[in-house]
């Protein structure tokens, strides 16, 4: 435990420290990519610029489904959505209607984790809220607790297809799942699939990074522009921030 804490405090990735421990000098080069570890010194967050998100663009949705093998059953109340677009209308129609991508907010105080009876829902050291699908019994308490409706239960059996991403598991019927901020990609130094797609095919509305790193693009932007979180009144401290809402 103490070694982990120290690493976290020094801000070293697990890769480097472990490499040094195992074989000084030799494995330093080989280490990155061979071993990863979540670091408590990070605080992953997302900033979505609503002004750049157009209603007709669905680059992030498509990319998410593709990356995480999320199927579409075509049943509105049973479909799985890790990220979806919500239309936001002003009651007095004084502001234009905006289209808001909504995904798991990875709250600092996640009610879903609080209610989980098996410990399947948990917060990783770097603040990402996850479902350990190996432990989920499908009770759906978390789905009720989540104010963002970010979670879905898998109602049907699914199969792999030749187009499936072989590096990501598919799903079992009766398990709850949701956005993972693409942990499997983050751990390998990549950005979440939606962010990547938004910045290549989409309008470039999504920014992702480490709020604890003062030099990161997202930390700078959060400091300089006005951003909001949704349902801030609940005090859950979401990690998905919106600009221009």
């Amino acid at each position, binding site marked *: 435990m103490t070694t982990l804490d120290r690493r976290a405090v020094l801000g070293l990735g697990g890769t480097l420290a472990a490499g040094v421990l195992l074989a000084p000098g030799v494995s330093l080069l080989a280490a990155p990519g061979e071993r*990863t570890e*979540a670091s408590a010194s990070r605080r992953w967050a997302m900033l979505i610029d609503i002004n750049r998100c157009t209603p007709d663009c669905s680059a992030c949705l498509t990319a998410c489904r593709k990356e995480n093998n999320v199927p579409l059953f075509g049943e509105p109340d049973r479909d799985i959505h890790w990220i979806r677009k919500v239309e936001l209308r002003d009651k007095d129609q004084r502001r234009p209607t905006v289209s808001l991508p909504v995904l798991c907010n990875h709250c600092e105080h996640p009610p879903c984790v609080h209610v989980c009876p098996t410990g399947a829902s948990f917060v990783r*050291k770097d603040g990402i809220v996850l479902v350990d699908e*190996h432990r989920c019994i499908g009770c759906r308490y978390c789905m009720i607790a989540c104010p963002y409706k970010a979670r879905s239960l898998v109602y049907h059996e699914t199969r792999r297809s030749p187009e499936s991403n072989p590096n990501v598991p598919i799903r079992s019927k009766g398990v709850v799942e949701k956005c993972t901020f693409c*942990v499997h990609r983050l751990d390998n130094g990549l950005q979440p699939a939606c962010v990547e797609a938004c910045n290549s095919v989409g309008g470039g509305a999504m920014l992702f990074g480490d709020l604890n790193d003062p030099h990161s693009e997202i930390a700078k932007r959060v400091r300089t522009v006005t951003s909001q979180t949704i349902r801030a009144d609940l005090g859950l401290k979401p990690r998905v921030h919106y600009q221009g809402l």
Partner: protein
Amino acid sequence: MVSYPSLFHRSFFRVLPLLMGLVLAIPQPASAGDVPQQGGSGRSSGHPAHNGPADHPPLEVPEGRECVQPAEWMRRNHMDFLKHNRDMAVREGVRVKDDSLKNCSTCHKSREKFCDRCHAYVAVAPNCFECHDYPK
């Protein structure tokens, strides 16, 4: 604080059943230690376990390579190994490439000719492949 006399007292009573057990065991020449070998029909599966050969179809293992852990150890502990790595990867983000479930298939290329053959024999049915990709 424990005083000496009482300590002696306790340890004596702890040893007593052991002594009695010894007395009982001595007259019997064959104790529980040597169970007769089972399934010793001479059929070789290539990799007999310590306590008798297993009767499952031969397992397909790659030539000239070594398992991520000693094969003898893996035979007995791969389930705990995989589950430990699973918890570390999912919960702590500790992903060791060599130890991932995915990596098994770089050598054990067919699930049917390796994992399943043995699992069918011992009647276990891990559900891992409902979600995880592994070549048939």
